[in-house]
């Protein structure tokens, strides 16, 4: 379980998270929606300890993420992350991209790492691209590679930061389909997204972020189709 407890986070004078609390159970898919600058991506970075927090607490399986004694590199093995800009490693083939971390972080043998990587790449539909360099692929394919690369570490949770925002419209579908597949398989996910349809259909709950706080959270269909908070209503009427 991921438990975010009253987290505050500032960049200089700018307070981005103003007391955010959120519990995500194993097997649950939570979508986070909200305007840009509302702090939703920052929350993911804080959960993954890429960013520090100013106060509050984040627990992942009861381990305090930001405690000094926590081995953050080890913790991140549990937390797969996919970014808006897919960040494939351009100097490696698709297969090497996905096999690197299992090999050097989990110390698997080369064969074992390749085997797992291959399986995950087939999983996301890139089984025929193993020896291709990522720069030769479309954004959608690179984003699916990023997903497979994270999955190859066998994470317990996936953190997805606006993974379709930088894609050409016609490539969004293939990435969302991949995420839908993961959700069906029971992967625990926190998805920061602008895809309202996806949030409504795939996630269990939706949280609406507004100016650094969760203004509304509830069952996905209810929040998207029948929001209670006027702020959520205003936001949704704009994006639709």
């Amino acid at each position, binding site marked *: 379980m991921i438990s975010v407890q009253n987290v505050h986070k500032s960049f200089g004078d700018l307070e981005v998270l103003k007391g955010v609390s959120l519990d995500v159970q194993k097997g649950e898919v939570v979508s986070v929606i909200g305007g840009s600058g509302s702090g939703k991506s920052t929350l993911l970075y804080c959960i993954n300890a890429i960013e520090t927090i100013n106060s509050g607490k984040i627990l992942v399986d009861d381990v305090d993420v930001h405690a000094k004694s926590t081995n953050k590199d080890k913790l991140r*093995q549990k937390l797969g992350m996919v970014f808006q*800009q897919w960040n494939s490693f351009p100097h490696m083939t698709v297969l090497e991209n996905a096999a690197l971390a299992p090999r*050097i972080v989990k110390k698997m043998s080369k064969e074992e790492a390749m085997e797992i990587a291959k399986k995950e790449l087939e999983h996301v539909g890139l089984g025929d691209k193993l020896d291709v360099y990522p720069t030769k692929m479309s954004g959608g394919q690179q984003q699916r590679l990023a997903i497979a690369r*994270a999955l190859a570490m066998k994470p317990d949770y996936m953190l997805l930061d606006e993974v379709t925002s930088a894609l050409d419209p016609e490539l969004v579908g293939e990435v969302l389909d991949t995420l839908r597949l993961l959700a069906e398989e029971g992967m625990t996910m926190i998805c920061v997204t602008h895809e309202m349809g996806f949030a409504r259909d795939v996630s269990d709950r939706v949280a609406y972020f507004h100016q650094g706080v969760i203004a509304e959270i509830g069952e996905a269909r209810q929040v998207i189709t029948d929001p209670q908070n006027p702020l959520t209503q205003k936001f949704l009427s704009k994006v639709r």
Partner: protein
Amino acid sequence: MDYEFHWNVVFQNMPQLLNGAFVTLHVSVLAMLLGIVIAILLAIAKMNNTKFFSQVATVWVEIARNTPALFQIYMAYFGLGAFGIHLSPYVAVLSALVFINAGYLTETFRGGFQSIPSTQYSASKSLGMTSIQSYRYIILPQMLRRIYHPMTNQFVWSILMSSLGILVGMSELSGTTQRLQSLSFRTLEFFIVAAVMYFIITKLVLFASSLLARRLFKGEI
């Protein structure tokens, strides 16, 4: 044309010319290696937040890149000599070349490093890699690809610049050529052969470097 070429004397002295060529290669390789080591330190210093370090690096880079190589060799040989520090021609030329290489390569390294998006680092960290692993497997290999050709160019440049050793009596290829032609008066022949030798050396270096690149970068350069 009433100039008559006499090549024999050149070929008789070939062992000496080859020896000079070896010294040329020797001093350039050493200048390159030392230059790289210092440039890495200067690049780190330049990106450092401590003002003192970044200023020292900036001054080094600015002087190295904006004054003639000839002056720097003179400074090392005659300049230091005036203060009682007498360097041999070899060491004087070596230090000048190291000084210049380090200056140019600092900017190459810094640019190469800054051209790698920081998101590559976040991505590797998010996979559980330690900082050292991130640099070792993700940042440095990409950086090396980008700076490889500028580094090769710098190497060729320093081979050619080492010919300035002639001016302080160094026995590299140019110095040796100068001495031999003054003994035989076959100026044109000796310098033509020396030019051909420089050409061959730099072409060999470029060839070796592209072979190495193909091995290192698996054809992706």
